[in-house]
């Protein structure tokens, strides 16, 4: 028996900002969930189950927040499932929700990811002293910068490619009213002149710290057919993971990433991603990860991903493969929601509902998230038409 066709019926986001001081975590989640339900033209009563994800609990210091959020998410008396996969969690959460539809366990599922970074400290929560090693790592940037340095040296990319990615994503963010960073007067020179945090990575090449939630309502084929607003049909879903330190590990282009991409493209019947995908939302919290993932995912030849940045291929302004039209993680990073935002933005593109950052006529789009030490991967492909 084949899998049930699955559709994205609704998307809801909050305006991402450094501090949403006017709402609690529950209020933040409820706002995104309401918007997703309104977009799907559905009521709480029609939802069968809730699937929720966020980054590690010690960020906000609330253990198992899904338990107290059940009421805010209308999940009392319904199944609620929590997903944990570090930074990729928003993507994995959407895929777990999709699997509940694909397997015909449920007909309509609400899925949501959130983070309230203003009530936490992600940098130092990620760098706890451990007795068997020395305290020398300063946050995610300290972990990923050496890997980006390795990419720079093995690809021979020009030094300012990272700054070009950051500038491009911040320009895209100006077209997305939900984006956290709206830097209207930012110049490329200011990006380049920004202080080094983790050399080779500048402050301007890193993601902001955001509060926010993103929710989606997913439904089966019948509910997709009945929907009043356009829906996005799921063409492929894949997850993979690997250990973050083993002999022979390619940290720049992890095996799990390559295998995950091969699986999702095969499911969607795509053999030439660059030609067949119209819009891409990939998880780029640090600038150089755009060319690195373009190569790993098969949109570019090995060591050539940076050329697509340099020649404008990934720009919404006329590029062949616009990447992160929403502004990406570099413009909004509520960590637990960031992966789901990629998946939701991919859906908005093929629904034709992305507003000013819409890619004209987008028919197929790609959503991506990664987490941990670039070791957890979640990907989906959605289309305007049924697969």
């Amino acid at each position, binding site marked *: 028996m084949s899998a049930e066709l699955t559709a994205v019926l609704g998307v*809801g*986001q*909050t*305006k991402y900002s450094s501090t949403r*001081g*006017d709402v*609690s975590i529950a209020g933040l989640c*409820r*706002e995104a969930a*309401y*918007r997703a339900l*309104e*977009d799907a033209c559905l009521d709480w009563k029609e939802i069968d189950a809730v699937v929720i994800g966020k980054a590690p609990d010690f960020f906000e*210091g609330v253990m198992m927040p899904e338990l107290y959020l059940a009421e805010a998410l209308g999940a009392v008396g319904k199944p609620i499932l929590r997903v944990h996969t570090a930074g990729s969690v928003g993507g994995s959460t959407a895929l777990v929700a999709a699997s509940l539809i694909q397997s015909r366990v449920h007909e309509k599922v609400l899925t949501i990811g959130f983070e309230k970074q203003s*009530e936490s400290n992600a*940098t*130092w929560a990620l*760098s706890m*002293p451990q*007795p*068997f*090693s*020395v*305290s*020398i*790592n*300063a*946050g995610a*940037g*300290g972990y990923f*910068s*050496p*890997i980006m*340095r*390795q990419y720079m*040296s*093995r690809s021979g990319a020009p030094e300012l490619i990272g700054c070009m990615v950051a500038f491009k994503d911040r320009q895209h963010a100006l077209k997305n*009213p*939900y984006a956290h960073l709206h830097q209207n007067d930012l110049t490329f020179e200011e990006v380049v002149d920004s*202080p*080094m*945090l*983790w*050399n*080779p*990575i500048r402050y301007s090449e890193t993601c902001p710290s955001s509060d926010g939630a993103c929710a989606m309502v997913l439904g089966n084929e019948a509910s997709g057919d009945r929907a009043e607003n356009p829906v996005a049909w799921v063409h492929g879903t894949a997850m993979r993971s690997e*250990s973050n*330190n*083993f*002999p*022979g*590990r*390619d*940290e720049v282009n992890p*095996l799990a990433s*390559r*295998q995950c991409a091969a699986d999702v493209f095969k499911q969607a019947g795509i053999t030439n991603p660059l030609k067949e995908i119209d819009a891409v939302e990939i998880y780029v919290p640090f600038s150089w990860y755009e060319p690195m993932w373009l190569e790993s995912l098969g949109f570019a030849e090995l060591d050539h991903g940076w050329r697509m940045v340099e020649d404008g291929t990934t720009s919404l302004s006329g590029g062949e493969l616009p990447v992160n039209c929403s502004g990406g993680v570099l413009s909004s990073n509520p960590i637990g929601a960031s992966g789901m935002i990629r998946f939701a933005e991919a859906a908005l593109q093929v629904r034709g*509902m*992305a*507003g000013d950052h819409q890619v004209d006529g987008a028919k197929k789009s790609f959503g991506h998230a990664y987490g941990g030490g670039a070791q957890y991967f979640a990907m989906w492909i959605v289309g305007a038409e049924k697969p």
Partner: protein
Amino acid sequence: MTDPNSTPASLSEEVEIPESISGLEPVRSVRSPIRLIYDFVPSPPVQEYLRSYKKKKILGHRSPIDGAVFVPPRGVDPRHGVLIEESVELSDTGHVGNFCITHLPIPGRDDLDTPYVSAWIHLDGANVGFLGLVSGCENDEVHIGMRVQAVWKEEEELGNTAENILYWKPTGEPAVPIEKAGNRAWDQADE
């Protein structure tokens, strides 16, 4: 597209507040730092690893499957899901597999002047790296493949800790070529 600053219709309904609390100032958020202090009991291989540091020795674990050496030793080869029982003593020399120059101070490490070099150190005879501080040269002289050696604390200051190594200093030997530096020395597993 929904106006991101609008209030969802269903959230703008009036809420009835009980009279007993109606005059109070609404609580928007409560911020309170939290702290959790606990005793850490290392696994037997890690205990052995930490105790050997006191004798200025670095221990690794050798996989019974293909001989790959892991440091710190954890008692397992995570690739194959097998136990490891064979310890090997490693040299305190190696090379820089990867690094960054960090400009952020680390809480509790007042001894570190910014910027400092945090690097993946790949010991001679080991097949994975661990993090360490590189010093004893200018930061911009550090490069991938650079040969380094441990600089240890004075004898009387040695404890059961990896912190016995103050930093890693360049030895001046020829660098390891980039294609053989770090994890790349081990044949990449193929799909």
